């Protein structure tokens, strides 16, 4: 008898094969096309219908890209590894900057009811703004597309961390605070030895949500700012009408997500 996980793997494989087989079977070019002249082929052939490239074409493309991920043939043609590295470095710098600011401010808001009430209106107003809506403003103020992309990552990942840290800090059990008070700990020692470990799970949850959002936003941000990165890559290939590369990227995006952070989904 197979164990549950073996059965699950088997069912998964069957699903995969069915979907890939269906896709492959339905995206073959029409027979007539093969007999067309080169001119007709360039004009789109007899069949005017655009088709999604079949999985086999994508596999070939993937092999091609992955076997040489770090080539650099000028600004418009770089290996997928280089593009990923650009995106990851942007996400990480924006994200770390956000963590650096959000966690201390979250502590202050969580520990002081006064600061909570004073800052809450601003947080509630700024938080729902779509990260990409900041882009024009960032481009205008910063005047540098690279830094603007990092800023967008920063602004989208700051809120979950800020709110989770404040919430985690504010809901540390009263008893533990009392333990710190009866042991005459200074506010800083209390924050580091009692509140930080007690709030750590909530803070980490905020950090995980943030990195997930940051990775979603970087692709869109790079489509806008261009130059380098996987968002730029996929948009560039779309402009080249190279759907094979676009689909290859869409799978590849998952692997980037694993590089950047813990499994968020």
């Amino acid at each position: 008898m197979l164990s549950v996980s073996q059965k699950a793997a088997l069912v998964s494989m069957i699903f995969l094969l069915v979907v890939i087989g269906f896709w492959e079977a339905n995206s073959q070019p029409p027979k007539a096309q093969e007999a067309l002249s080169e001119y007709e082929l360039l004009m789109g052939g007899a069949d005017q219908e655009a088709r999604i490239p079949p999985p086999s074409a994508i596999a070939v493309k993937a092999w091609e890209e992955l076997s040489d991920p770090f080539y650099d043939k000028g600004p418009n043609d770089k290996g997928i590894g280089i593009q990923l590295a650009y995106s990851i470095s942007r996400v990480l710098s924006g994200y770390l900057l956000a963590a650096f600011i959000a966690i201390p401010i979250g502590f202050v808001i969580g520990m002081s009811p006064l600061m909570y009430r004073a800052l809450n209106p601003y947080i509630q107003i700024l938080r729902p703004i779509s990260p990409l809506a900041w882009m024009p403003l960032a481009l205008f103020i910063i005047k540098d597309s690279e830094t603007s992309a990092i800023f967008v990552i920063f602004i989208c990942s700051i809120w979950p961390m800020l709110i989770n840290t404040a919430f985690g800090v504010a809901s540390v059990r009263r008893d533990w605070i009392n333990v710190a008070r009866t042991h005459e700990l200074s506010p800083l020692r209390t924050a580091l030895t009692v509140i930080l470990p007690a709030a750590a799970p909530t803070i980490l949850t905020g950090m995980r949500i943030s990195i997930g959002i940051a990775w979603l936003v970087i692709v869109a941000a790079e489509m806008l700012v261009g130059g380098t990165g996987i968002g730029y890559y996929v948009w560039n290939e779309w402009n080249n009408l190279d759907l094979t590369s676009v689909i290859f990227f869409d799978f590849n995006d998952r692997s980037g997500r694993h590089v950047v952070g813990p499994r968020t989904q």
Partner: protein
Amino acid sequence: MTAHFLQVQDLTKRFSGKNQTPLTVFDKVSFNIDKGEFVCIIGHSGCGKSTIMNTLSGLDSPTSGGVIMDGKEVSGPSLDRGIVFQNYSLLPWLSALDNVRFGVKARWPSWSKAQIKQHSLDYLELVGLKGAENRKPAQLSGGMRQRVSIARAFATQPKLLLLDEPFGALDALTRGVIQDELVKICVKTHQTVFMITHDVDEAILLSDRILLMSNGPNAVIAESVTVDIPKPRQRGDIIKNPGYYTLRNHLVDFLVNRSASSHYKEQTRPLMSNPIKSQLSKEKSEPLAPRSCAVSEILPTGT
């Protein structure tokens, strides 16, 4: 005034909300504790025992009145007063040893790491937790957690130990074992202890003196009963003491029949403003002799 170790003077706590009549939890509570004394306070819930405890610890401040310990007014939490909370209040991410070490490190910041560790281990051993020092609170039973909590409080060698219903959440068997340990440790260290309890037998077993609180609101300390069954006491032997049941019946009778009476509230308030003082001065003149009667003084409430 003779300098008692701890003086509680005219302590009043009033909670006033916006559209509410202010609620006076307890009113002008005064009592003293001498060095080395073990004092229990018994009363129905809601009479403000825990609030008194929090005021003594400095975590809460009274509406009026004050607490003087060792010549100094209590104005905030201090390492001079160790607290064992009802729900243990251990830090769950620290091992038993680290929880004790947390207190020791705060008490003597200049000690070396080895010294702090050794001191902490000594106290864990004192409460019978040798070998369990690396376990997290979640891996300890309720009784063991409370022992860690007791070790943490004792290890800082506070001048006054405050116990807030420390055995309330434990089963009867565990409670008995830890009570015995507490008796042993107190005999060894001559610790001054103030303890809240609901358990009459526990109070008799442990204390030198039992304060009885009338029901809140406007609670007062109605009586101060001296327990003069000779120490050290054994759980098994104590019930054979001829005074035991007299004392026990008196306490239970108070809790069941007399604690609610308005008798304590209106009629006698002026006289009750400092009920224990007269009591203590009498005790001074006739020191605790092994008398057969357990109830040495029951404060005359109407005189």
